[in-house]
């Protein structure tokens, strides 16, 4: 047998030293014990004959999916939502456990749908619970930022993987400050939502449909590719993506024959809202991750999501089961006079971006926002590199110029998280914990560590059952 050119050594440095002393290159693994109590489950899952191939399939399914914007339409049409049905971000939750911002958003949503005249009246409606129902967006091929509340009359982006016809959905972004998704429900919030329903939605629908007819659907995955090279990480910074979307839709908007004032207002609203594209990035990520959902034996995370009370993950090899723990408070910067005491625990489906390898995982590509989310440029580089330790592969489509165009870390592996103790890094906004307040800051957060050993234990159980 030929002499090895390199040796990867995990364990005692002494043996790595001995290899180096024989003039053979050594890569040393900075090994540490895994999360407490996970050794046996890790071994069981690692030895699962399905795992390796299942993970490769899950990763390939995710990386092979592309998302195109094919339509904009009300949730009642595309999701079949009926009056009284409310979708929300995160794993399932009931009104009695709902946090302030989720309650605020539900109250505003009830007023928007005309179920109550005053949002404050909605409290009794939800407490009674007989005429309303709550369900996660994720259970309806949808994702919602922050509180993620979706009601039947809200307009939704419709994204499709043209190869398979699979679709995902997300509401239209309202902008920053006092907005429904951060739990605000004052008159100006409802006024804006009504304008979105009556002007923005229909105009976008016309523009998207015209664009589809003339030049084909807007390639959302392609815009993500470009915006990552332009300083957006597509979670907390979407400026380039928003403007590229506007570039694609503007001709059809202008020639739509709609009132010129309305067209101008739509262009001003979208162009002035740096987060508008987030609501396309999120369903694009969900579309890719849903392609990996239900891959037996795979340890890849397909959703990370929070409802303001619980943080939940779903894994490709464990079906639609949620593994949950308490949502954490983000560490970051606050708007105005707000401080840590004002912030609600982590909330929103937007961690779907990190699950797909962008957002916090692509921090290195977005030096312009590291300060906003409480970090430094070296931290940003280190964060992206660290996320490669817990992922199955890289996305060749989404690359990071400053890291020599290395693809973003993709496909969070439950076993690698348990082995290294490295938790996924999420960029996030912070909602005020009192219903009605709105956004109070932005920062960095991680999932509660215990959900990964929980998911691992279930994977091990399924592995043993297959025997």
């Amino acid at each position, binding site marked *: *047998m030929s002499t090895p050119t390199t040796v990867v050594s*995990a*364990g005692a440095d002494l043996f790595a030293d001995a290899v180096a002393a024989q003039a053979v290159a050594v890569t040393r*693994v900075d090994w540490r014990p895994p999360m407490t109590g996970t050794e046996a489950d890790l071994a069981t899952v690692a030895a699962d004959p399905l795992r390796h191939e299942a993970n490769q399939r899950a990763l390939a399914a995710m990386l092979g999916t592309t998302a195109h914007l094919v339509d904009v339409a009300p949730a009642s049409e595309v999701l079949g939502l009926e009056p009284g049905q409310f979708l929300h971000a995160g794993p399932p939750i009931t009104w009695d456990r709902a946090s302030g911002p989720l309650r605020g958003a539900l109250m505003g949503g009830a007023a928007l749908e005309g179920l109550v005249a005053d949002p404050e009246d909605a409290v009794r409606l939800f407490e009674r619970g007989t005429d309303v129902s709550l369900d996660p967006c994720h259970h309806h091929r949808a994702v919602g930022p922050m509180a993620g509340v979706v009601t039947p009359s809200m307009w939704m982006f419709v994204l499709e993987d043209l190869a398979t016809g699979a679709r995902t959905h997300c509401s239209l972004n309202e902008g920053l400050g006092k907005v429904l998704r951060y739990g605000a429900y004052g008159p100006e919030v409802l006024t804006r939502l009504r304008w979105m329903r009556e002007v923005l939605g229909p105009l976008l629908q016309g523009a998207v449909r015209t664009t589809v007819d003339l030049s084909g659907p807007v390639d959302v995955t392609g815009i993500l590719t470009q915006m990552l090279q332009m300083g957006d990480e597509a979670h907390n910074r979407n400026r380039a993506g928003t403007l590229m979307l506007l570039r694609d839709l503007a001709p059809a908007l202008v020639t739509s024959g709609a009132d010129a004032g309305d067209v101008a207002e739509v262009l001003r609203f979208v162009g002035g809202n740096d987060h508008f594209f987030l609501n396309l990035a999120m369903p694009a990520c969900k579309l890719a991750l849903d392609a990996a959902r239900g891959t037996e034996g795979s340890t890849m995370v397909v959703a990370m999501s929070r409802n303001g009370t619980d943080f939940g993950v779903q894994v490709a090899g464990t079906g639609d089961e949620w593994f949950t723990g308490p949502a954490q408070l983000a560490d970051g910067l606050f708007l105005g006079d707000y401080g840590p005491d004002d912030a609600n625990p982590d909330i929103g489906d937007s961690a779907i971006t990190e699950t797909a390898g962008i957002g916090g995982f692509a921090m290195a590509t977005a030096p312009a926002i590291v300060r906003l989310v409480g970090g430094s440029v070296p931290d940003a580089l280190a964060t992206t590199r*660290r996320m490669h330790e817990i992922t199955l592969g890289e996305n060749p489509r989404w690359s990071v110029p400053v890291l020599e165009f290395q693809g973003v870390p993709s496909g969070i592996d439950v076993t690698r998280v348990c082995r290294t103790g490295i938790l996924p890094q999420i960029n996030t906004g912070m909602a005020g914990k009192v219903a009605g307040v709105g956004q109070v800051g932005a920062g960095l957060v991680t999932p509660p560590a215990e959900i990964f050993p929980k998911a691992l234990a279930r994977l091990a159980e399924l592995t043993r059952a297959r025997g």
Partner: protein
Amino acid sequence: MTDLTHVELRAGAYADSVTLLQVSRTVQGVDGVAAAQVAMATALNLDVLTQMGFAVPAEAGTNDMVVAVRVTDQEALDRALAAVDQALRDASRRDTGPSELAPPRTTGAALRHATDGLALVSVPGASALVEAMDALDAGRDVMIFSDNVPLDQEIALKRTATARGLLVMGPDCGTAVVGGLGLGFANTVAPGPVGLVAASGTGCQQLLALLDHAGVGVTSALGVGGRDLSSDVRGLSTREAMRRLDADPAVELVVVVSKPPAEAVAAEIQEYAATLDTPVELALLGAGRPDLTAAAEAVLRRLGHAVPSWPASGEAAPATRGTALRGLFVGGTLCDEAMLIATEALGPVHSNIPLSPGLELDADLAAPAGGPGHTFVDFGDDALTAGRAHPMIDPTLRLDHLARVAADERTAVVLLDVVLGHGSEPDPAALLAPAVSAVTAAGVPVVVAVVGTDADPQGLDRQVRALVAAGAEVHLSNARAAHRALELLPSTGKAR
């Protein structure tokens, strides 16, 4: 004067056992420190700490680091704790490049950047499968040095490797030479016509040392794990290793060396050997089978080489007291081989790795009351290495036991092994020779098998001279050493 004892738990801190051994030694050398032990709180280490007189808090778990020191005064304690922190810092990762480039945290992550080569895994046994599976997933061979790898996990790894045409070396066999590169405990040998497959680490090293002395080189020595030829593992790695060596044009003779194998598996391997183009010599230990030295001689004859006389230095005088033979080994196969030889002459001997059931030593390793008191201890056995470095690196347990054996009036002769090569202690004789002197001074002859080559980092000649100077008789052949120890026993009265 030594009246201040300090025991401290550091929850969640971790360092590997070799690092902690070095830390402990550094702290032991600090002025005013009477005793120091820094170790992970495994059951074995807690025993050691208790024996040293330290009271460890009951809540200590295996992921906790224990810092235990006995010092003369408060100032010495401050110095000792500062030395612990400094030594831990010094021992932690060396600079691997630009500061933002953190080293990989898993074998899988490391292999992403290495385009070829293999993986060497020496993490604690409970985590070895996961790291080794990373290598197999990346399509690489892997050498598992780790002890205490559960049997079912070994089988799972080897089945996966077999299905993918990959080789798992180890576990529970800490030696491999791959294309001349030594991994784990490996002797430095010249390349040559022999390819070894070893289900035995020190058995492999004994053959390497003897063949090297006879001037015959070895191309590769593939350690396949001490359990590979058991009826559970059924030679999964042995077959793959034989296939690799058969395909290697540099190999003229394949030699399979093993601890006592399962008979049915040995037969299967013999059948498999017959299907290969390269001739195969089987050196499988067992009652009534040739010892390793005889196996080396058979290899030499088969290659048409002269069999040299195996070197011996010093001469021990016959025992002057006691009746019992005490073998204290760091090499499991060397212990097995010596026990087989001793059992033939003396009848059943007690051991922590007994040749037959019913002869097990208790956890304190003391000779049972009554009876002749012949005992053999393998300090490299899994039960004595959980959370501790192997005795070829950390001599503490054997030195401690050697002192107890010397103080026991029943001890007539002491038989030891010293194994050299990469990975082993840099100067084993330095610590062993003073202890040997104390034993020989008490009128107890000491016979030592020193397994090594002239090119080994420790220097074979230097090690032998130091032990001879301490009064020991030293052999290169472990079998010869065992026979000599028997000759020195008063009760057997075997003539030379």
